[in-house]
């Protein structure tokens, strides 16, 4: 808003009238031909997901046919089998690693973001870029020393090892995202509250929290997604006790041979939490993925 008025060109008023008209009509419509193209592309991208879910409800004999038989009878057998073959501990490990590391990330990132936005320390951009630079270091380069340290500490095959690593992996993203959300708290209100003698807790609770809550939820979502999907550390640092859902998927292929329907059921099941969360928070996803740089 302010930027617009500040740099307003001479013709701004004219343009503003035009824009008002445009807003009223909304975005332009797509022609029928392009609508068809759009839907064709959408269905092409969605087909593998649809095929995965559909196959997961088929019997093994109907899953591996040539040509494919999409209209075969549906069954829950594959899911029942998965749970009887003990996918549960893997899901629990994944849930534990993702949820606890997300909570830790938020606990560390929120005060940091506060110190970088609302009451910025000197050279705060340098601190921001330090956090981000750690994200650019490929995880594979850290795997060897982490493996050796974890082995020496007797922490191989331990969920807490993953929790610490996932916290480090997501912390920079969370700091960037939370900073961009906290930067939206209006400075004028903060100053007014301070002049009125409100203490820090009151300011945080009454002014910062309401503005930052949706941002906090979005940050938590992104951290959860990245931790839930992480594979490289999980497969190399865990064995039997602490393995997570992606490790189950890969191990299950090699140990059980190829059962296509059951593979699809497992793939659907482990993707489900992220699919649901992602669909529910589509708008927040964009900002999270771009570290808050794009609104």
């Amino acid at each position: 808003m302010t930027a617009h008025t500040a740099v307003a060109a001479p013709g701004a008023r004219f343009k503003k009238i035009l824009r008002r008209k445009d807003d009223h009509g909304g975005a332009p419509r797509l022609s029928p031909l392009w609508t068809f193209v759009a839907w064709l592309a959408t269905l092409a991208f969605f087909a593998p997901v649809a095929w995965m879910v559909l196959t997961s409800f088929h019997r093994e004999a109907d899953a591996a046919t040539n040509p494919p038989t999409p209209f075969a009878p549906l069954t829950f057998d594959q899911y029942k089998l998965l749970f009887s073959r003990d996918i549960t501990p893997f899901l629990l490990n994944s849930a534990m690693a993702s949820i606890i590391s997300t909570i830790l990330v938020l606990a560390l990132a929120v005060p940091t973001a506060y110190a970088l936005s609302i009451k910025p320390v000197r050279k705060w951009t340098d601190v921001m870029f330090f956090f981000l630079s750690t994200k650019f270091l490929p995880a594979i380069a850290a795997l060897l020393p982490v493996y050796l340290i974890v082995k020496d500490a007797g922490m191989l095959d331990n969920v807490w090892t993953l929790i610490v690593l996932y916290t480090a992996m997501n912390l920079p993203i969370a700091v960037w995202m939370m900073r961009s959300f906290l930067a939206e708290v209006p400075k004028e209100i903060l100053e007014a509250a301070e002049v009125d003698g409100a203490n820090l807790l009151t300011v945080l609770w009454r002014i910062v929290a309401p503005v930052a809550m949706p941002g906090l939820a979005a940050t938590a979502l992104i951290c959860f997604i990245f931790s839930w999907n992480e594979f490289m550390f999980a497969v190399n640092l865990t064995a039997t006790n602490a393995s997570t859902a992606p490790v189950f998927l890969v191990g299950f292929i090699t140990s059980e041979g190829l059962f296509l329907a059951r593979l699809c059921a497992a793939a659907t099941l482990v993707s489900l939490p992220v699919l649901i969360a992602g669909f529910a928070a589509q708008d927040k996803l964009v900002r999270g993925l771009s570290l808050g740089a794009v609104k």
Partner: protein
Amino acid sequence: MTTLTAPPKTASPPVRPRTSPRAGAWKRRIPLLPALIFTIIVTQLPFVATLVISTLQWNILKPGERHFVGLSNFKFVFTDERLRTAVLNTVVLTASVVLISVVLGLGLAMLLDRRFLGRGLARTMLIAPFLVMPVAAALLWKHAIYNPDYGLLNGTLNAVWRLFGAANGPTVDWVSSYPMPAVVISLVWQWTPFMMLILLAGLQAQPGDVLEAARMDGASALQTFRHITLPHLRQYIELGVLLGTIYVVQTFDAVYTITQGGPGSQTTNLPYEIYLTMFRKYEYGQAAAAGVVVVLGSIVIATFALRTIASLFREEVSR
């Protein structure tokens, strides 16, 4: 309009601190410290360890032979045939995945920027590939789609062939015949939604009045795209390319699952090659040296990334 009456920010006098300035500065820094210390310990120390290990001759299968060898691991890294292939594969894989998914993502974003029947549903369905767990996606492509005997791809071709009266369609073993394209396509499928989301956000941030003005001046759709939309999107495209590059360079799940780097070393990328050196050949020193080289390469990419992000950042700060 309110800004015109409000005093400019820079001119306002600093709020008088209640305590001494130095104590105030420290008070501000305290909330920052836990995260900073944690990050330094967990990310910087392993890197220092990698540097140290990279100067050692260290194979876990030959205990007692661990000793300092200076830069010879690096010499090995730069002369080894396998590693050179891995570097080349990494570049090919990353460049093709990022470029194809940016182009496809831009096309989809342009379509989804307009209103059409079921736009919300289409958008939700398009995001799905990005949300499927990467390992699950890789397994899905390998077994349910590329499988020569009963995969969806050959199955569909077969069904189409029969439709036209031929007895059987072609039976192509996609993963062994076209290993690199097979990996690239599965990754493009996963990353296109990411590019689409960022570019769509860019398109929707485009001021409507400029487009309207262009239309009134009689600019064609192509001209508008070329001279207004594309320059506006530049920053968003750069951001997508750079974030995409950073993530795709690190691809491990897809290579590990779909091709295991093969056939031969045709799809072995750097992360996978380092993994093999570490957990199959047990050459810790060489793995560490390769890791250091990867980090140096990443720093080059990251410098560009940081510059782009910094420019987006400056805009926000100056607002």
